């Protein structure tokens, strides 16, 4: 008697209920007995303050999903397993997710993965397309649940699109009026036209991640607070580096270091990498996912990097004050000096 083992990664989306339903139904069509593994992948590890809330949400989602499976299964022979994955590591890109699913699948003898088309783990944007590619690469069989979502989705992206268009329009119009003369009618009219063109053509490019009406303005304010701090760091680092360069013996000590940062991809990572490059003495050579390869010129700059001041500041900008209080890269053992081979 065949047993079908299914892995269903869950996230809190509109279509998660239908996905679970499809998983149970399709599993029972293929075999008499079904073993349904419901898992939630946690994006954060324990070192990060957000992880406690994520874990609560995950447990809540799992218990709901367990009820759904029991409801759909009826009298059929269905075993339910639930798990939370990735609690001990910081999951970053689709590749990380694909790998933990693969590990779990190998350990439990999973036959097939049923994916929610809207799968959206934790805080990151929708990653399904790249996740499928990574699963293909690993060679794990998956199946996308056929779900109905058109109506809901249209409304949702409608409001998101408006936010993006509006934000791009305002940025562009503001910039235009700064360039031109805000009291001249010609500039006011052409500015509106130009901002319209820019908003329509670039809104989806610039704001590839949906905006949050509450959080996004707060982030802008916090970013403004971050600028003086960054400038102060730059001045300090400049003086230190200048002192080294102008000394005739030039006591530099170049090292390559690898730092696993705890910021998300996209804007936070770019802000961190550019801040690191902007402070003389540290230079981001490579940024693959959250792993930064940083070249440091003098020991003082390396110590600053390992103390993670900039990282905490970036976390403050994007995730708020509570999130800024994380252990430094040195304390959580994410910073190491590597040789030239790592390039």
């Amino acid at each position: 008697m065949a047993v079908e083992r299914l892995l269903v990664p869950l996230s809190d989306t509109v279509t998660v209920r239908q996905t679970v339903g499809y998983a149970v139904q399709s599993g029972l069509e293929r075999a008499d007995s079904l073993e349904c593994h419901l898992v939630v992948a946690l994006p954060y590890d324990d070192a990060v303050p957000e992880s406690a809330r994520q874990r609560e949400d995950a447990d809540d989602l799992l218990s709901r999903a367990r009820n759904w499976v029991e409801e759909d299964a009826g009298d059929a022979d269905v075993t339910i397993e639930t798990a939370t994955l990735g609690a001990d590591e910081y999951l970053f890109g689709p590749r990380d997710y694909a790998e933990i699913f693969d590990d779990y699948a190998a350990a439990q003898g999973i036959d097939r993965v049923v994916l929610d088309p809207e799968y959206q783990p934790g805080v990151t944007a929708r990653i399904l397309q790249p996740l499928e590619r990574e699963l293909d690469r690993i060679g794990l069989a998956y199946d996308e649940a056929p779900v109905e979502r058109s109506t809901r989705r249209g409304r949702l992206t409608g409001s998101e699109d408006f936010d993006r268009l509006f934000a791009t329009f305002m940025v562009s119009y503001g910039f235009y009026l700064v360039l031109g003369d805000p009291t001249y009618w010609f500039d006011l009219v052409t500015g509106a036209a130009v901002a319209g063109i820019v908003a329509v053509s670039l809104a989806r490019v610039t704001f590839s991640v949906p905006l949050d009406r509450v959080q996004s303005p707060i982030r802008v304010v916090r970013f403004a607070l971050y600028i003086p701090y960054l400038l102060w760091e730059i001045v300090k680092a400049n003086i230190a580096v200048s002192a080294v360069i102008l000394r005739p013996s030039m006591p530099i000590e170049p090292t390559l270091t690898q730092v696993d940062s705890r910021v998300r991809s996209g804007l936070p990572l770019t802000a961190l990498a550019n801040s690191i490059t902007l402070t003389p003495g540290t230079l981001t050579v490579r940024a693959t996912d959250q792993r930064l390869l940083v070249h440091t010129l003098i020991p003082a700059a390396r110590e600053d990097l390992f103390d993670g001041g900039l990282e905490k500041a970036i976390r403050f900008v994007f995730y708020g004050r509570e999130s800024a209080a994380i252990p430094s890269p040195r304390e959580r053992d994410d910073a190491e000096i590597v040789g030239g081979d790592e390039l």
Partner: protein
Amino acid sequence: MIEPTPLQVTLETVRFWAIVVLLGLGVFFTLVSTVGVLRLPDIYARAHTASQTDTLGAGFALAGVALAFGWQHAAVYTVLLLFFVFITNPTAAHAIARSAAETGVEPVLAEEGETDESAADTEGETR
């Protein structure tokens, strides 16, 4: 022609010397950066000091320009220029360093001693 009040004269003098100091600092940090680019052993180390021109060299000089324009439209323009430089230059430095890493330019590292320098240079010649 109205005779300027003593306060105005003092303010002008202060502004003048503030501009001189800002420009002097800008020139100084650019000088350090130039010396660094000429002296330092490899591309990665040079990129560090190049960012000094981008940050404080350009920063102080443009601050001096903005101060000279005072409360005018052009001052806003200068700040905008500075902001633009601050966003683009680290990205450019990262792009250059990354391209060096991708093409296999070996960094000179402290642990491996100075003998590596000549090796890295000769390897670079072939490109």
